[in-house]
């Protein structure tokens, strides 16, 4: 009897295979042969039950494998979506997996190879049960700073391996240092003249000789002027940040340049510095605020003259490339160190604080230039070779965009 059923099963199986070699269909067919509530009793069914049980186990294993596979794949692709690099190793220290972001470290050939070394070292320590965090700073260009964190992976008190996370802290640290320096610099810029005023006032109160008093008063006026300039520039910046202040005049750029040069000419002449404007074709007017553009150009000229040697020259270039106006101011002064170039547009940022106190200025000029450029839909950039000079270029889109 049983052999009959087996034979029937085999025959039916063969037939089914003939119809379709689809295993899933075969399984469904087998299941339909024996509904679940019927299975499990009687000698006849026990053989069928055996076959079915084996089949079921295989089905379950297959399903588990499939779901584990899709689960792993899903996990993997979500790890790849992470910005942080992630590296996982097993209890023996072998790397099990890593996400896409970790590729740049594990396959690094230059600076990032150092991060990969740190990852491996920290994983090693994490496997021993430690939780460790380290910062790695790469000094070669482009400078980067990474935070590597490693911890053991444990379950029920047993260490299964270790996981390392690598986060790029470059931007975070840049913002942090901008914020920190801003607070330090703003208090420096505002408090230095106030401190000087307080001392000068003290001396005046001591009833000095008339000529000494006159000198003290003169010094006080210089310091007051300094605070006044700083406050003016701060107000200008605040105004520039207010979007509604964006002008909508038609501005002839030649007139702007001429007016700015006119303002700087006296200072330039005093130090025998020539300001030369390049020849250029007529440029159509652009939309914006004449006052702001003039103050931007003036600030650039002011810097150029300030940092030029006596008898030097400042070149102003005006040209249009691809509907973009490029207005450049180049000097032959001391230039700007490479490391500082990205920071000079920050408020109150000074390359050399000791020197800038002599040259005057508020430390806000370039911030103003940048804001004016941004408000007009453009930007400002700098190139420099230290010791040979610097060139600032304001790029502004030309024509009505409405």
């Amino acid at each position, binding site marked *: 009897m049983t052999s009959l059923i087996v034979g029937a099963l085999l025959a039916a199986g063969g037939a089914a295979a003939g119809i379709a070699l689809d295993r899933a269909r075969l399984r469904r067919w087998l299941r339909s042969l024996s509904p679940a509530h019927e299975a499990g009793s009687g000698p006849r069914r026990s053989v069928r039950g055996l076959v079915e049980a084996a089949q079921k186990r295989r089905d379950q294993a297959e399903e588990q494998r499939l779901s584990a596979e899709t689960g792993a794949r899903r996990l993997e692709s979500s790890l790849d979506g992470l910005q942080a690099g992630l590296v996982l190793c097993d209890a023996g220290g072998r790397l099990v997996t890593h996400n896409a972001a970790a590729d740049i470290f594990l396959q690094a*050939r*230059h*600076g990032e190879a150092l991060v990969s070394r740190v990852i491996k070292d920290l994983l090693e320590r994490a496997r021993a049960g430690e939780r460790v965090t380290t910062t790695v700073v790469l000094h070669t260009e482009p400078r980067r700073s990474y935070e590597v964190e490693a911890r053991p992976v444990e379950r029920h008190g047993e260490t299964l391996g270790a996981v390392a996370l690598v986060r790029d802290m470059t931007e975070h640290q840049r913002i942090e240092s901008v914020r920190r320096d801003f607070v330090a610099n703003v208090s420096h810029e505002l408090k230095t003249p106030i401190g000087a005023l307080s001392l000068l006032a003290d001396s005046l109160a001591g009833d000095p000789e008339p000529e000494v008093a006159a000198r003290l008063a003169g010094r006080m006026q210089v310091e007051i002027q300094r605070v006044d300039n700083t406050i003016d520039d701060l107000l200008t910046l605040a105004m520039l940040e207010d979007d509604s202040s964006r002008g909508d005049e038609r501005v002839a750029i030649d007139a702007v340049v001429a007016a700015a040069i006119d303002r700087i000419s006296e200072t330039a002449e005093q130090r025998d510095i020539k300001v030369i404007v390049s020849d250029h074709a007529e440029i159509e007017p652009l939309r914006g605020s004449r006052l702001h553009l003039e103050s931007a150009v003036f600030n650039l000229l002011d810097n150029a003259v300030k940092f030029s040697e006596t008898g030097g020259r400042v070149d102003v270039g005006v040209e249009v490339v691809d509907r973009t106006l490029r207005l450049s101011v180049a000097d032959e002064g001391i230039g700007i160190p*490479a*490391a500082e170039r990205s920071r000079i547009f920050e408020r109150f940022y000074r390359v050399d604080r000791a020197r800038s106190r002599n040259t005057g200025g508020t430390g806000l000029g370039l911030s103003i230039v940048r804001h004016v450029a941004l408000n007009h839909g453009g930007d400002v950039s700098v190139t420099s*070779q*230290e010791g040979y000079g610097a060139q600032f270029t304001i790029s502004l889109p030309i024509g009505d965009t409405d």
Partner: protein
Amino acid sequence: MTEQTRKSFHAEIDEINDLIVQLAARAGDAVARATDALLRYDLVEAQKIIDDDEHIDVTAIEVEEKCQSLLALQQPMAGDLRQILAAMWITAELERTGGLACNICKGARRMFPAELPPRLRGLIAEMSEEAIRLIRLSVDSYSERDAGLASALDDIDDRLDSLHRTFVRNLLEVSRAKDVDVQPSVQLALIARYYERIGDHAVNVSDRVRYMVSGVMPWRGKISRHATREQPVLEDLPSLSTDVSPDGGDGAG
């Protein structure tokens, strides 16, 4: 069994490659840090760089020992042998590069607190960038086994050499104008020389890469060229009358 041995041999070679890449990364980083310390007059950082050089030395010894044991235990032939020999030589070059970064730091310490004239600062920054670029290119040629890139490195190094000459010329100018004292002048001349040497070490690395890939020995040609020279050639001596700046001179300092 033999397959097992071969596998572990190549795994060992991979490890050596990884270590050399790390060594180069460390050496390049040390050069960049040394330049920062020099230009920022940061003696604390300078000391740290000198201390950190130990990591480079340790890694270099690690590579050398791995190479030694591979040579002794596996007795590799042909390409495998060249690979290991090249790795040993390249390690020595990178270790020297790290040493030169320390020398720059020591120079910075000796010339403190003299201030650097802006033009010399600019040239130092450029030499440093160029030297680091050469290190990177030499490692690229090593990792990719790119003999073509390796043989181009000698020419690419010309730019660093010419920067070095420009630097010396400018240094003579400013020290004649008494903008820099004798002691810092001497240190600056040495420091410039260190950058130039770092470039030379990168070229040496690329020579070893060419040997590793194709078996040619570029250094042989250099030696025979050297032998034909009876006297050291003085063509490199800077002439003071030559105009230095590309955009016309304005009083330096």
